[in-house]
């Protein structure tokens, strides 16, 4: 059962943020959200998450900057899984994210919600 797993959704588009939130809450996950890079970092450092869904194009601080910062100052929960959830899909960006410690890379526009869910489940299983 996935109940209780805490996931942080970092997404600036309100509709998409609420969409993923609804999708994941319905599955029994415990969800928190952040609409920009700074809010995200604050939550990452102050609260414990099992998984972070991280967009790249974000206001204030982008996803790549966030990856850089948590390399220097790790998340409160040391083994948080970071999965990029973005619409940028160029090979170079994907490689950079993996190099910076992301464990997964999901392209929003290429996956349907079922696929997003099963990917997330997979990453959480791998982590536990």
């Amino acid at each position, binding site marked *: 059962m996935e109940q209780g797993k805490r996931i942080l959704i970092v997404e600036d*588009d309100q*509709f*998409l943020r609420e*969409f993923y939130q609804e*999708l994941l809450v319905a599955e029994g996950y415990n969800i928190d959200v952040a609409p920009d890079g700074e809010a995200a970092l604050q939550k990452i450092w102050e609260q414990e998450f099992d998984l972070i869904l991280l967009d790249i*194009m974000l206001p204030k601080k982008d996803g790549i900057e966030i990856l850089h910062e948590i390399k220097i100052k790790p998340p409160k929960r040391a083994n948080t899984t970071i999965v990029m959830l973005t*619409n*940028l*899909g*160029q*090979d*170079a*960006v994907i490689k950079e994210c993996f190099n910076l410690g992301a464990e997964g890379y999901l*392209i*929003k*526009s*290429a996956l*349907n*919600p*079922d*696929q997003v869910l099963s990917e997330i489940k997979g990453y959480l299983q791998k982590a536990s």
Partner: protein
Amino acid sequence: MLSEEKILAFLKLQQMVLDIEESNKLLDHFLPKVLQELDSLGYGYIYLSAIFIDKDLKVKQTFFTDQNNIVSETVTKGENLFQKGSEWEMKVMYGEAAVISDVAHLINPNYPQFAQIHSMLILPIQHKRELAGILALASSKNPSKIDADEIEFGKMITRLVDLAFRLQDTESSLTQITQQVYTMNAKLHQLDKLKDDFVSVASHELRTPMTAIRSYVWMALHRSDVPLTQKLERYLYRTLVSTERLINLVNDMLNVSRIEAGKVEIAPRSFDLVALVKDVVEEVKAKADEKRLQLLVLDHKIPPVFADSDKVHQILLNLIGNSIKFTYPGENITIDFFTDGQFVETSVTDNGSGISPEDLAKLFHKFARLDNSYVSISTSGGTGLGLYISKSLVELMKGKIWAKSEGVDKGATFTFSLPVATEEVLKHADQFQFKPQGEVKPLEPVAI
């Protein structure tokens, strides 16, 4: 008769005009030399000034040099050269030399050697029989001491001064034109970058709301808490497919613009094509499973190819994705290889909806409208750009792409070739790579 000494001095000065390399400062170099040369011939002028005028007799440029060898350009631009209607002015206007003793109004009284100047030889500078300016030589001599010989030599010197001025003028206008072209070029570059940035940002901004539409429609279709009527389901399904098409279209258009602008890099390396095909098959397995399609990779022994694996990945996704779209449920798609030692041909064969002979010719065109075959573009989710992109990429890698079909409903085979990584190819590896000038742009992922 001019003395041999003077002729030699003249020739020396002439050579100098032709030899000075910094043409934009020709007069700066040349005028002090003239003064020096005249001095060595016994004509000790205190200063020399050259004034150039335009067609309306307005001063265009003024040069001044004295024994300190410093040339200065004085700024009396735009004024009329002749103001008094005096005798020397009339003479000069008609192309004659004039010697004047009353120099007070021609020289700034603050000039340190003002008191020593007792005469001035004013020579017309002519260009194509028109007055182009004057050369003024100031000396401490009594005006009556200036003889015909001196005037004659001075006149010859004016030709050289004119020549120097023309050369300098041409050079500076050339420099100006070069400068203008350069500025224009930089501006164009900047505009191009702006356009490109705009396209990139706009496409990303477009994708966000499109993803939201797609996600919510998907939910309405798959997670509705009320049963959908058949009609509503059809409407939602068509909305979903159209949104997907729109997303693909944005990606493909970005890719086309990058390829056409020559911003896509080809970085070839030697790799195992069969392994890459197997990866791609794994990637599209979910899509194929939805339609209960079998994907068969015929495992031949083929030599490694020399190509950009990311781009080949893109091509394979496009071709295999197409086959999945256009093959009827329950059927097979076969991927086969062939090599003649120089090239490896990879073919993707399906027994799907096929292509009519008329459409075969148009297949690889941009936004090819296929009237007689294939499932219509709107229901396939296709963009009409995928094959064009594949063709462009294959050709960038020195390969070819083609299609065969017996006709509508008779299936189709798409084949592309890539060079084998032979020793010969590896020796000329640089001919197979393409490095864009300026910024390298990555390709957007292919949707299947």
